[in-house]
């Protein structure tokens, strides 16, 4: 049985068709990345999986159970502005546990271990404003893992970081992921990031958002930076790029028209 299953999901806002017949099965311990140009409905798909948006048709299943509202079986990592500025690193990390009323000695101990795992031991009493962008994303990851979810869903978590920090964080994420091998759904617009991290890359097309192709990435793990110079890696990036190239041109052209 698949860990996370998206079955025939379609969604429109008024006359605008955003998602059409999305079907995706993500197995346990699998790392799947979704890439697509702007306007491919990534955000809507994510909100649907979160259970804060209802699809017009289709279902989302976690461990075979249909979901209709947010729950602790899914952990979310967002862009860096989603940490609560008035909470310390520790208070941010236990937010999910607090919401579901699961704070006890055991979950606290687990959370402390998580903070050590993401490299933030000793920073428990810092506020987000005192942290660099990379550190804030570590908190974000710890916060999502603290509720011990079945699936970790990451929405362009590194897009606001500078290029070097982003590379470091990609490597860090793989290191953290190898510890527990959670099922991960990783949304990004960065093709090399998707290929570097994932077991499979799902390429979305735009208007309406639909799955164009799923590219399995057959690269050995653990992966290091060097792999990005590997010919096979470059071939994968090329392949994904060729799949979305026309869509990206369209979306850029539309943006230009919108500006004029």
């Amino acid at each position, binding site marked *: 049985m698949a860990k996370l299953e998206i079955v025939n999901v379609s969604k429109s806002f008024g006359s605008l068709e955003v998602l059409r017949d999305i079907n995706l099965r993500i197995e346990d311990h699998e790392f799947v990345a979704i890439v697509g140009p702007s306007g491919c409905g990534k955000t809507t798909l994510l*909100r649907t999986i979160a259970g804060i948006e209802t699809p017009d048709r289709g279902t989302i299943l976690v461990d075979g159970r249909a979901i209709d509202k947010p729950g602790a079986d899914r952990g*979310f990592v967002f862009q860096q502005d*989603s940490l*609560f500025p008035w909470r310390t690193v520790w208070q941010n990390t236990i*937010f999910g546990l607090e919401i579901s009323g699961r704070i006890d000695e055991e979950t606290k101990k687990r959370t402390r271990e998580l903070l050590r795992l993401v490299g933030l031991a000793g920073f428990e009493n810092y506020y987000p404003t005192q942290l660099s962008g990379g550190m804030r994303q570590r908190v974000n990851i710890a916060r999502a893992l603290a509720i011990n979810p079945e699936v970790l869903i990451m929405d362009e978590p590194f897009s606001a970081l500078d290029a070097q920090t982003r590379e470091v964080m990609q490597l860090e994420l793989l290191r953290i992921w190898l510890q527990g091998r959670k099922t991960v759904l990783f949304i990004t617009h960065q093709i090399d990031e998707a290929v570097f991290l994932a077991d499979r890359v799902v390429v979305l097309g735009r208007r309406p958002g639909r799955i164009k192709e799923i590219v399995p990435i057959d690269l050995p793990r653990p992966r290091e930076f060097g792999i990005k110079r590997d010919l096979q890696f470059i071939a994968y990036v090329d392949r994904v790029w060729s799949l979305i190239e026309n869509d990206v041109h369209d979306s850029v052209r539309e943006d230009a028209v919108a500006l004029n």
Partner: protein
Amino acid sequence: MADKQGGDDIPRRKSSFLAKRSSSASALSIIGGLAIWEFCGRFLVKNSLFLATPSQVVEEIIELARTGELGIHVWASAQEFVIGLSIAIVLGIAIGFVMASSRIGEQVFGPWVTALYATPTVAISPLIILWAGIGVWSKAIVVIINSIFPMIINTDAGLRATDKHLIDAARCFGASRLQIFWKVSLPSAIPFVLAGLKLAVGRGLVAVVVAELFGSRAGLGYLLVQAAEVFNMPRLFAAVVILAVTGIVLTALVGRLERFLLPWRFVGQESK
């Protein structure tokens, strides 16, 4: 772990050096101002009907304190101010909350708030005194109608300004509407509410004095108007100085409250 990450992981801290320098600059500025004032009073403006020197003012304040008059007036004004401001805070936050959280609430209170916020409500204090007499309550009411609007407007704005990303994040963690209010909207509104409180304190202080000018038996405004009638300049200035100092102290208290309620806004700039 963290020390291996390089530049990415160095926590940012602001220096308190600038803060210290600017505080000694304000001390110098105040001392300089007092010196110029003393000089003008002694050598330039000879007529004591127009100006009292700082030393005369200090003497007068000591004298007023000795006879117990000062205590009576400060106590009268303080009562009016505290009663009025407390009611304005509680009622203002409540109304602001209702406006932010319900459409009907906004439609009911909105027009009144917009209309009255810009009206110089101190101007109607004679009317209030006519209605409510010259006791404590008339002044308290004047304070309320002056201080409540910044509280309402800022509470409303603060609750509305809650970052949508934060609300979405909380929802994804399964937070209920009530949890979102307590754990997201409210804490993110507190800076706005405190900014409103600063305005309310300033407006309330003005309101107390102005209301006392129009009719009272005690209070700093009363002291002021009495002194003015007999051209007792040292006493008039004494009242003004006490009000100014009160303003500074109250602002500092709100600042303390900010540091206490919003520690995350002050991290890195250690207190002096």
